[in-house]
């Protein structure tokens, strides 16, 4: 049998060629001028589903902007997304941001989980590339940069966020709980807070607890019960909660834990006025309805939600559902993740329209600071703007409730499509 043997020369030649590809990943052919944005999300790994929703939301928005003539004040400049995948690993946040910048990205967008986002922050600040955080709730992401600019360690803040922070999530939720209880003319006293003991769950729990301590409402958090995420069984946690005789259970779940928690509450016949979450996934997604069915009925949760009173939102949501059906075979809801990434892209377009020049990152930052954008599809408390920390104080949550097996906005009144049902009817 003839043996094919790799000669040393051929080996070295192919190694050198490989190194050259690695060193210069830029496309070699000439391309029409575009404004490149590194859109980095966790499209594989444990957070793949929301990450893919973010990517699709951003892509759809970029397509819509380009179809409408691009950035008009800059001669119809088109947007081009350089896609990246963090796999929810912090190191990939940095690697992908570096790659996007190396390929000519003049802005960065991302990246859903706070760890990866914070490693993108260092690239943004090092390379002076403005980063718009579309989703990531940990307060320090922007606060740390604002602090280092204030203390003179950094000259300019290149990191801004259009998403509620952990603490603002908490404030919103406590306010909605209080208002809904008052509106319903009932006075639940005992709230048991249950949460997934991971990064997200802990962040949400802390924000909610701090806001409750600050607001001193008429109801009380009688106990905080964590569970390891993902849990294998939640019967002990639920029986502990039941023993506390709560009026309201406030769960901070993940999809996997919600699938255990809600049936367990039913099985143990916990008498409740309602299940009202301070804000978490697992309580409103299409996939969850298929599993939890009636257990989800009347559950409320406070989440960033699209403003479905806006006809444009309805049109985009329909297009999103069709596109997901075409690409994945399942109609998906236009929700928190796809919605905030969609808005982020239109926000970027608005910033680019107003920037004096796109060649200077500081000019883009200047335009970002002066943002007053009212064209978002999500439910906001006012126009999108950035405070001294770089966060949008008008990025708020909406209380949604599962009514007739569909998530419906029920509070605040301005956003409500239907009246909430609280206390829930007795089974």
């Amino acid at each position: 049998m003839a043996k094919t043997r790799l000669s040393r020369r051929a080996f070295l030649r192919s190694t050198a060629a490989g190194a050259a590809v690695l060193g210069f990943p830029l496309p070699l052919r000439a391309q029409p001028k575009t404004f490149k944005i590194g859109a980095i999300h966790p499209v594989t790994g444990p957070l793949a589903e929301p990450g893919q929703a973010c990517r699709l939301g951003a892509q759809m928005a970029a397509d819509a902007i380009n179809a409408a003539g691009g950035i008009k004040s800059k001669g119809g400049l088109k947007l081009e997304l350089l896609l990246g995948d963090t796999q929810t690993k912090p190191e990939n946040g940095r690697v992908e941001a570096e790659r996007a910048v190396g390929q000519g990205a003049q802005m960065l967008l991302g990246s859903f989980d706070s760890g990866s986002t914070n490693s993108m922050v260092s690239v943004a600040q090092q390379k002076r590339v403005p980063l718009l955080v579309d989703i990531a709730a940990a307060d320090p992401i922007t606060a740390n940069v604002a602090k280092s600019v204030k203390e003179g360690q950094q000259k300019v803040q290149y990191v801004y966020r259009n998403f509620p922070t952990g603490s603002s999530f908490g404030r919103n939720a406590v306010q909605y709980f209080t208002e809904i209880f008052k509106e319903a003319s009932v006075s639940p006293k005992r709230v048991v807070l249950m949460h997934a003991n991971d990064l997200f769950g802990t962040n949400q729990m802390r924000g909610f607890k701090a806001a409750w301590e600050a607001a001193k409402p008429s109801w009380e958090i009688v106990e905080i019960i964590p569970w390891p995420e993902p849990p294998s069984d939640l019967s002990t946690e639920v029986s502990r909660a039941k023993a506390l005789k709560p009026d309201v259970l406030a769960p901070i779940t993940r999809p996997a834990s919600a699938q255990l928690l809600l049936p367990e509450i039913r099985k143990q016949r916990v008498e409740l006025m309602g299940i009202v979450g301070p804000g978490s996934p697992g309580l409103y997604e299409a996939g969850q309805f298929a599993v939890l069915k009636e257990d989800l009925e009347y559950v409320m949760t406070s989440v960033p939600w699209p403003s479905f009173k806006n006809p444009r939102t309805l049109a985009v949501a329909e297009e999103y559902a069709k596109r997901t059906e075409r690409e994945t075979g399942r109609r998906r809801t236009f929700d928190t993740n796809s919605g905030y990434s969609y808005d982020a892209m239109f926000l970027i377009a608005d910033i680019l329209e107003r920037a004096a020049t796109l060649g200077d990152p500081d000019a883009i930052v200047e335009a970002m600071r002066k943002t007053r954008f009212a064209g978002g599809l999500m439910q906001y408390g006012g126009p999108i703007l950035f405070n001294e920390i770089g966060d949008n104080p008008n990025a708020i949550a909406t209380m949604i409730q599962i009514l007739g097996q569909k998530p419906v906005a029920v509070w605040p009144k301005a956003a409500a499509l239907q009246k909430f049902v609280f206390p829930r009817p007795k089974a």
Partner: protein
Amino acid sequence: MRWLGALAVLVLLALPAVLGSYATTILILVFFYGFLGQAWNIVGGYAGQLSVGHAAFVGIGGYTAAMLSLEWGITPWIGMFVGGALAAVLGAVIGYLGFRFGLRGFYFVLLTVAFAEICRIAVSNVDAVGGALGLYITFTGDPRQFQFQDGRVYYYIALALMLAATGVVALLERRRFGIYLAAIREDESAAEALGVDTFKYKMLAMVVSSFLTGLGGTFYAFYLFSLQPNAMFGIPLSVEIILRPIVGGAGTLLGPILGSFMLTPLGELSRLYFGQGGHHGLHLVAYGVLLIAVVLFLPQGAYPYLRRFFVGSRP
């Protein structure tokens, strides 16, 4: 061989001048994982004690330096060594329990995994060290805080770490210590019968390995600016650490480095080229298939084959 090594180092020193930031970043990860793989190689490769919990040392090192910096303003340049020392203490505890009670093979694997998991769960639940939220380091660009405005500095630090660890391993390899470790790996009972104090040398290997790995934790923390219990102490990081030496050639001087030069760019390039279209996850399949191919066709790791290719085929 010596001049070839010197030439390679010179090339690596000069590379950032011609490479883009993405390629530099990949090389930083190549060096970093090469360094961690080399540190693991001492106990896992030379002494043959399969530790699958080395992420614990990365975590201890990184968290220590970050806490010292965030709480007391102590520069990570010092924190790095404090973290390394604490990692070495943990290594000594694990080593003592494992080696004193004669845990071998799978039992030692389980012990190391258990300790890493205990650390991860403990850190996730202690709010004083950030809890499940983790720690977020403020980017200042101040070199005294182990932060650099120019990303190329990280390149040189990672390169220095990898070369230093390789130097340590080269020294060990040539001394009696290295030979004792190889004897322990090949047949521990025989080594003991010949008078080798196997407990002492395994302990020493564990302490040196965990100290070096702990140093790497500081680099990881101050390169990525965020520390989360799952990323710093989790099993996936432990597996990443041991994959390099296993693929490159465990128990060889250059195996972990070679493994890192193979796997890190492979992971990145497959993500770059397969991850772009709608085929989410295809890059993971490609990476997995290539990994299986390497293990199937190069079961002793790539280094012995490459050595034969370059040195052995010489007339």
